[in-house]
């Protein structure tokens, strides 16, 4: 099993290690609830070095990405990133990604750990141009600094850039501790914050620096447990739950990044047809109205017991403090406030459809 450059740091911090996507990762240190709250109220650090980094470069890099990803790559400019997806011919989601434009001929893609090798093979196979595609995942560590105090923590540590003027989904190539880093104002928690790409062999130094300087701000190292509860409150999809190759991007709620008005791209035709015909199911948010927690795979039925869907993710989260989740349900049952039944271990629990996200930070 693979270890990130921070594995020894996790052990020395008392992190509880679990297997995730072939990696040995910390699921928690001090506790999921304390870590979740630290990110909502102060600042938390996440080791996201398991995420994959793929470079697409050359004069035809933009053209290649325009065809192999669904968002409009030509709308990017140097220092701008966007959320996007690699789709298959049926419009299913091979992976959800962030595309960073460093220059017109140099793009970085950040992909999910569990899909990194698959994505690299996919991109190499479907590349319609001579653009160069390199899987650089092992060269990078990545640390997410998330929470209302994230910028206060990171800004003074950076040389060669002023993070205080860095806008959301923008990034800058600069230095920390004399080493080159890419700092992006992005995240997966619903809070303000940055994600820092750093050379693999400098990742532990950066991690320790952030912990040391963050002590007065109340920083906590955070594991995969808090990462999942934070992203779920913010209704950010997770591949393997809300996103999958056999679920269309439109059904998963990714319509906002599927740009039909650009040129041809993989999945366009299938999704256009689906859009015209209407979606048979949709991803909705739900709250439970009775005690219990619905989890991935639990069935959703009408009050009469007719099966209308399945839960994609569910838990009881610390900040919202309710049993909640996201589920795919047939379109006629997807309107807000529709009463549903969630079948949890054979028991029917009442719930209803709610607006997503469950949590939105005050700006």
């Amino acid at each position, binding site marked *: 099993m693979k270890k990130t450059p921070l594995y020894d740091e996790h052990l020395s911090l008392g992190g*509880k290690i679990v297997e995730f996507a072939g990696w040995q990762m910390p*699921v*928690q240190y001090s*506790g*999921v*609830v*304390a870590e*979740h709250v630290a990110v909502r109220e102060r600042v938390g650090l996440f080791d996201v070095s398991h995420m994959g980094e793929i470079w697409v470069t050359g004069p035809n890099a933009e053209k290649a990405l325009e065809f192999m990803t669904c968002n409009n790559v030509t709308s990017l400019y140097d220092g701008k990133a966007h959320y996007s997806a690699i789709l298959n011919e049926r419009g299913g989601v091979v992976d959800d990604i962030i595309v960073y434009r460093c220059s017109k001929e140099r793009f970085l893609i950040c992909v999910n750990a569990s899909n990194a090798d698959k994505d690299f093979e996919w991109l190499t196979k479907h590349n319609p141009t001579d653009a160069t595609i390199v899987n650089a995942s092992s060269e990078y560590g990545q640390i997410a600094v998330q929470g209302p105090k994230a910028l206060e923590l990171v800004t003074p540590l950076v040389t060669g850039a002023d993070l205080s003027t860095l806008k959301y989904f923008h990034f800058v190539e600069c230095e920390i501790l004399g080493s080159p880093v890419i700092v992006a104002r992005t995240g997966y928690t619903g809070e303000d914050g940055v994600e820092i790409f750093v050379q693999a062999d400098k990742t532990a130094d950066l991690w320790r620096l952030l912990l040391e300087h963050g002590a007065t701000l109340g920083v906590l190292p955070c594991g995969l*447990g808090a990462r*999942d*509860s934070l992203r779920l409150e913010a209704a950010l999809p997770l591949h393997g739950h809300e996103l999958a190759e056999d679920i269309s991007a439109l059904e998963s709620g990714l319509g906002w990044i599927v740009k039909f008005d650009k040129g041809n791209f993989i999945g366009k035709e299938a999704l256009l047809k689906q859009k015209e015909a209407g979606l048979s199911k949709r991803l909705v948010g739900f709250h439970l109205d009775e*005690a*219990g*927690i619905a*989890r991935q795979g639990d069935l959703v039925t009408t009050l009469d017991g007719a099966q209308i869907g399945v839960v994609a993710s569910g*838990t*009881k*989260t*610390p900040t919202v403090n309710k*049993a909640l989740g996201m589920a795919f349900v047939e379109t006629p049952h997807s309107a807000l406030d529709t009463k549903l039944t969630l079948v949890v*271990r054979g028991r029917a629990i009442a719930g209803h459809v709610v607006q997503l996200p469950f949590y939105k930070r005050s700006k």
Partner: protein
Amino acid sequence: MEFPNECKYTKDHEWVRMDGDKVIVGITEFAQSELGDLVFVDLPQVGKSVATHGTLCVVESTKAASDVYSPVAGTVAERNDALVDDPGIINRTPYTDGWIVKLSGVSEAELAGLMSAEEYKKLLAGG
């Protein structure tokens, strides 16, 4: 980690303790630490009969649901309703305020067959 001597233990990481003619059941310090912060406890109804190793209740963290098995056969005489609003009591004080149920009608022979604190510690150490 703490393993009170007055408790008896199971290999599934539950503890039991006598309380008059009833038997108190909870999960061990090790179990709560493995499960992580609990956010929901699905308690059984008072009056429910449980078999040895039968599912007594379900405890859930943000990540997963786990069954708690009954260490002994008996009938649920009381349940700790404080856990409904604050399941974290189990994480903070697993052997005292974090008790889950009290069982009645438990056989003394069955209790005698459970592990002592020393034996349980050995099990955790891999011995």
